[in-house]
């Protein structure tokens, strides 16, 4: 039978506060990682259930948001793995060559950012999962390579590589969008 609720650690109202404060951030992480609003909603739900259940193991020295995002990151990566036909989606693969076509291979400029956050997010959703996940963890969650490596279950160097290549994919995507825009 399912256990009932209120642990002395967290009253429901206390947890409600946590939920309200962090929902949006956790949701956005899940949405980036899973690339779907529906699945993100399911995932957030699960994340908060897990957090509630594991409240006892929360170390108050850490910020609550990091703790929640860590749970969320792990959960979503699990989901991605479960979904992928090959379980080792983040591992090294055959296309080792670094050079991706030069188009758009220069770093994205600042001007771009101010006006086109939407486009960047769209490009983000269009790049392969294996690159999106580390990029999101690095720049949305602002985690270090080691932490990302832990979540993805790969070596630290692999994380560096995925992030590097992910950015190249992203630039390429943005350049494509730019060309379309100009063509109009």
């Amino acid at each position, binding site marked *: 039978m399912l256990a009932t*609720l209120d642990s002395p650690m967290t009253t429901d109202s206390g947890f409600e506060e946590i939920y309200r404060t962090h929902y*949006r951030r956790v949701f*956005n992480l899940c949405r980036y990682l899973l*690339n*779907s609003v529906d699945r993100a909603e399911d995932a957030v*739900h699960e994340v908060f259930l897990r957090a509630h259940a594991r409240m006892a193991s929360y170390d108050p020295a850490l910020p609550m948001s990091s703790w929640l995002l860590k749970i969320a990151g792990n959960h979503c990566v699990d989901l991605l793995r479960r979904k992928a036909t090959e379980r080792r989606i983040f591992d090294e693969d055959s296309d080792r060559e670094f050079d991706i076509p030069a188009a758009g291979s220069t770093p*994205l*400029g600042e001007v771009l*950012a101010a006006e086109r956050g939407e486009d960047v997010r769209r490009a983000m959703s269009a790049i392969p999962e294996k690159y999106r996940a580390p990029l999101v963890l690095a720049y949305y969650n602002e985690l*270090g390579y080691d932490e990302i490596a832990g979540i993805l279950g790969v070596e630290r160097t692999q994380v560096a590589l995925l992030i590097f290549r992910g950015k190249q994919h992203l630039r390429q995507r943005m350049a494509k969008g730019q060309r379309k825009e100009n063509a109009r």
Partner: protein
Amino acid sequence: MTCPTEYTCAVFVDGELPDIEARAVRLHLEECEQCRRLVADLRAENLVLVQCLQDVDLEESVRFPGFAEARQPVSIFRFAAGVMGTAVAFRLSTSILFGLKLPSGLGWLDPRDWARDPAWLFNAAAYVARDAGNLVNAVTQGIVALSVGAALWFGASRLLSRRAAVSSVLAMLFVLGLGSSESYALDVRKGEIPAGVTIDDSVVAHPDETSQNIDIAGDITGDLLAVGNRVTISGNVGGNVIALAGRVEVLGNIGGSLLGVAQTVIVSGHVGRNAIGAGSNVTFGKTADIGSNAMALAAEAAVEGKTQRDLIFLGGTLDMRGNVLRNLVFRGGNAWLAATTHIGGDLKGTIKEKEDLHIASGAAIDGRQAIELAPSTPEENQYLTASFYVWQIVWTLAAFIAGLLLFRIFPSLAPTGATGKDWLISGGVGFATLVSVPLAAILVGITVIGLPLALVAMALWFAGLYFSRIVVSEFVGRSLMKRSGALPLIVGVVVVAVAMNLPWIGGLISFLVRLLGLGAMALTIYRSFRLSPPRIAATSEPGEVMGVS
């Protein structure tokens, strides 16, 4: 030192280069303008990424479900108790409400009284539900109570947690199973009950495999539910009889009421209470004796026997030769009253033309004749009548209110399908639901425990058909207004209502709307039951856009 690769610079900018290498890069940057620019660009890029990704947190567009949704699941026992408690409370409240004896002057307030003037088909339905007797009553009341209880708890559970939704369904099944086994201790029989055999119980009769027929020649003290190709009752049934078959023939005695639904229904025996026959041919034979009211819903009905109270006919042609102690009420195409006819009360009816009513000279009608001519405007343009618009407005408002409630309780029912593919899937699932639910209900309904389940499924199916329109309306409104809420909902409801009433193509639109809505709901419900997302094809296809709406 030669220039580091861009890769090394990128790792350096991320602050992840080992100390020694980082120091080397820093030294190099002091003397290399080109690398300095690259590093600055990379740093700016990181900033861009962080900003763009995190900007989303400031957006208000995220649907923010109530905290309650993230609560822990409640225990299954609490759930079962809740469902049962609600069901009992509902049942009690209805029996207090409807069991009340109203003072005679206020009798018309009693909903049961509305069925006394069965001029409308609508009332006929109420009649069937009320007068088909205790079995139908008990079963439907139980089912209604349980469905209401379960629906309430399902709704509440959706607010509490998703896992609880699953447990509510389990609880409901559990309660239903309990209910069926306790209160309807039925005897399941196959084929026939031969003469001389007495069954001290209610019976559910299945046809035997070879002939598909059911013969009841023996005695049954309880109720009888018979579903088969041919159902023949020549024995005695103490309670009520419900017979669904190609041909139903009653030669023996039925203590309670009879509900016979078949292509051909023939009653030649004695029915203690009401007899309701629905089918293309309904015959109350010479020897038929109906203790209370007789009702025939048929293309052709022949009545030769005796009816102690009213005889009600709805359908095509009535051939009346028998004896009715009270009123004869009919609404249909033709009525032939032969010379042997005797009507103790009034003759009430609605026909198209006076010539459609033939009363032989010997027919005796003790009361008065109240024959109305149906308005002979079958070709009337419905778009020109005021009532059409009044009803459309009423239905639109009703749909709006129902929609508000629906999305309040199940916010996730709003379809998110944005691409054509999603709608295609919805349509396919909708079609499957449209067809499969009634089929499954029929198949399941043949078994004892399955019968209430089948009725619940059908009730949900009808509710789904109704709500399908609202779900699509909501989507239409949301797409048109680019936001969600009450205003887009009513806009969508109005747009869809207009579209569904367009001449020529309205029917097709309405069919499509139902398919899409039903499909979208079925998908949502399916999604809310799975605890982990299903394996679907990788979603990293370029075309797919993150739903930053």
